[in-house]
């Protein structure tokens, strides 16, 4: 009898719990609104951004490893220059700069009214400290290659010199950076990509121990428009406006970047729980839902390309004719139409059409979809045999394996299309999907035949990491392509600072890349920002997520 009573009571308790839970929460959310209006007269403007993965809490821009930490450091820290929405460099911490006559050094004139978030003034010492931090022999991060062109880098990096020779402090607010030879991506790699960290904070720890200084890493002090407020791993990060920001007080009061589940984020957007969402791939059904619900969208172009890497070390595959034939064999326009829904285009060279290094559509071979032509090239130029709908190499039917990582939906879905396309030219293609780290490792080591992968170029045209012989096995030259002629062009291209002088070189390179198809280019995808109709002033680009964020506002 007692037991019965007990269980009845328990059930009753649970039911009450459930109902009080719902009921009181409604009141709490009302209270919240009341509290806000009472405290501030008007509702504070909080921008809620969705992130599909959490930052790990390494909020030092010199030590970050992924874009999720990067979102936070981009808000809290600044570099000497920033890239605007026209892909041009604009002053940031440096109010102007002068390029020397020999193009080997740039003098930066720093802003004088900039303060770190803890109130200390920002000076040239911080700039020098940042570059020496990254060049330090014990530096535990991944950015030293960005600045290795700075004079004296090698000596300093090997511990042979006490200071980085190429960084010269002229006075408190003037600093001159010199490189060995002309370094074309100077403003990109050395300036835009390196955010300045405060000397007075980071000199307190040994450089080698900086990656373990959890307290400092999780309480970042920067100069940016937003100050760090709170971080809860795998849940959210909050930053609030910097009242002393040099370009004016940000119009948003705070920004909450919260981890969401990509499967449910749409519901959260429609419920008004999220105001800003960056989509790397676009699904038309989702897009229609957003637009019908009144959300605004902004298309984002990424400088990079999705391609099918082809192992050029493989004696069967490593021929220009094979690569060209494969480009004809794959219905790339079909992939763009059916999987990207217009948010992208077929890629035929390394650069996207809107970038200055792109030579123009008329100069490039479009490699239109044509299985017959593919078969013709393979049989006539590569010496393969085509019989009864099957492709033979040295008398044996050809069977290839396509390795690709899971995660990117469009890429996953393009694999079976390619498989079908290959069937049409008589080649059996086995699909091998694996998780990202495994697939990357295989591609890097050359343990594959064909592989789907995407590579980003960043803000500069320098593509040595993707196509130069020296990049085989160590960087992004997954196709293991080697061509002395292209190597020479790519080396030539980084010898000038001025875009106008580099243009003809890169146009030539792009045309050569198009002709050679070092890897099978597939498409340039674009993404989109979906945002609340009330959010205005957003100027997100593929290279600068938070450009001009102090002027974003709710209306």
């Amino acid at each position, binding site marked *: 009898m007692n037991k019965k009573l007990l269980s009845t009571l328990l059930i009753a308790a649970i039911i009450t719990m459930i109902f009080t839970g719902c009921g009181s929460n409604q009141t709490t959310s009302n209270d919240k609104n009341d509290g806000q209006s009472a405290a501030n007269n008007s509702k504070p403007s909080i921008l809620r951004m969705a992130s599909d993965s959490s930052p790990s809490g390494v909020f030092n821009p010199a030590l970050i490893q992924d874009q999720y930490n990067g979102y936070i450091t981009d808000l809290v820290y600044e570099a000497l220059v920033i890239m605007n929405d026209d892909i041009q460099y604009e002053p940031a911490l440096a109010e102007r700069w002068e390029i020397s006559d020999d193009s080997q050094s740039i003098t930066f004139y720093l802003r004088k009214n900039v303060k770190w978030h803890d109130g200390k003034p920002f000076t040239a010492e911080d700039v020098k400290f940042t570059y020496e931090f990254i060049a330090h022999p014990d530096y535990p991060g991944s*950015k030293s290659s*960005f600045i290795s062109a700075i004079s004296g880098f090698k000596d300093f990096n090997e511990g042979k010199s006490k200071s980085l020779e190429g960084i010269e402090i002229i006075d408190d607010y003037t600093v001159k950076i010199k490189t060995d030879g002309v370094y074309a991506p100077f403003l990109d790699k050395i300036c835009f990509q390196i955010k300045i960290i405060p000397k007075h904070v980071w000199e307190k720890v040994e450089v080698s121990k900086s990656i373990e200084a959890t307290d400092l890493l999780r309480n970042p002090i920067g100069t940016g428009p937003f100050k760090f407020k709170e971080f809860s*791993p795998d849940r959210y990060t909050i930053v609030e406006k910097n009242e002393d920001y040099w370009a004016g007080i940000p119009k948003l009061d705070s920004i909450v970047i919260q981890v969401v589940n990509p499967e449910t984020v749409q519901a959260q957007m429609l419920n008004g729980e999220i105001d800003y969402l960056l989509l790397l791939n676009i699904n038309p059904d989702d897009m229609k839902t957003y637009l019908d619900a009144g959300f605004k969208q902004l298309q984002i172009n990424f400088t990079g390309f999705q391609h099918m890497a082809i192992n050029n070390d493989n004696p069967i595959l490593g021929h220009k004719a094979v690569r060209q034939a494969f480009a004809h064999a794959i219905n790339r326009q079909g992939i763009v139409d059916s999987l990207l829904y217009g948010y992208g285009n077929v890629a035929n060279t390394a650069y996207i059409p809107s970038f200055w290094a792109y030579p123009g559509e008329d100069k490039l071979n479009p490699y239109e979809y044509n299985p017959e032509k593919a078969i013709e090239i393979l049989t006539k130029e590569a010496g393969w045999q085509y019989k009864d709908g099957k492709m033979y190499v040295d008398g044996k039917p050809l069977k290839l394996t396509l390795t690709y990582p899971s995660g990117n939906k469009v890429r996953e879905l393009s694999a079976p299309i390619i498989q079908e396309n290959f069937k049409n030219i008589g080649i059996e293609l086995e699909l091998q999907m694996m998780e990202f*780290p495994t697939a990357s*490792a295989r591609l890097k080591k050359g343990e594959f035949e064909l592989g789907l992968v995407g590579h980003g170029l960043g803000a500069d045209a320098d593509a040595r990491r993707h196509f130069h012989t020296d990049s085989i096995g160590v960087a992004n030259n997954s196709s293991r392509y080697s061509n002395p002629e292209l190597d020479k062009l790519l080396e030539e291209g980084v010898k000038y600072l001025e875009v106008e002088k580099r243009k003809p070189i890169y146009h030539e390179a792009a045309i050569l890349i198009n002709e050679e198809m070092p890897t099978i280019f597939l498409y340039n995808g674009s993404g989109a920002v979906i945002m609340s109709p009330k959010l205005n002033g957003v100027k997100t680009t593929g290279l600068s997520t938070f450009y001009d964020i102090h002027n974003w506002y709710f209306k």
Partner: protein
Amino acid sequence: MRQYAIRRLLMMIPVFIGVFIIVFGLVHTTPGDPYMSMLSPDLTDADREVMLKAIGYYDPLPVKYVKWVSRALQGDLGYSIRYKEPVTHVISRRIGSTLLLSVISLILSVIIAVPLGIISATKQYSIFDYIATILALIGISIPAFFFALSLVKVLSFDLGLFPISGMETIGAGFTGMKRFLDILHHMMLPIIVLTFIHTASLMRYTRSAMLEIIQQDYVRTARAKGLSEKTVIYKHALRNAMIPITTLITLSLGYLLSGAVLTETVFVWPGMGTLLYQAVSNRDYPLITSVTLLLAICVLFSNLLADIIYAIIDPRIRYD
């Protein structure tokens, strides 16, 4: 009895070492490295190598093993590669939120499943039994993430009753009672999913255990003696049926910590399940091995506990 417990405890040591060596070996021989999924296109291999060397990635496997074990024995589980803080900190922050879900849903499912199972068994082939059986089959066969997403669609999105994900309202700054209610509100959906799924299997188990007992001779004898149906079921049959049920419940204690990876992921619940998922996808070796170690300990101890409880509640079992 004590002798048995001690013997059983000692037997756990080799099992534990075996489990651990296998996990350690598998984790470290998986292709990829902790910096493989870093998205920066500009990271050179030289830089990557320096970073990998710093975390001992190139050490031979036995060296890694000895290093890890000797440190672990001193209570140092290592440093998480991803979170840049001691593994113990990372784990201790998650245990609470996972236990919150798993303990409550376990209690709820026991409270719901056991009585339902008993009623189902005693009223075999009744309408009640059919409905309960159908529900239980749905609960067993429905994938957790699908059920979770359906609940989100109906209860959160269409009806707006519950928040879609997370553990509390971010940035609201609630304290005390308000915070408690806020968390309770966020907890509802994951609890419903976990409870439903646990309940289904536990109920099926209770039902069949009960059915088996009811058909035994001594129950018929009890009925023949003229005992009331209530006494027969609750005093004579239930006691014996409870033995396997208790074992099952005790065994599931071992999984309390592991969290439900899928459910936690769907609701972005910051628990052990999402942590393990993150750790594996980022190849955070110290974190993976530590979490696995912890889970192995839990499972082994719950097995031990189940054996001991079994011995206590079932007088027929003698171990010496």
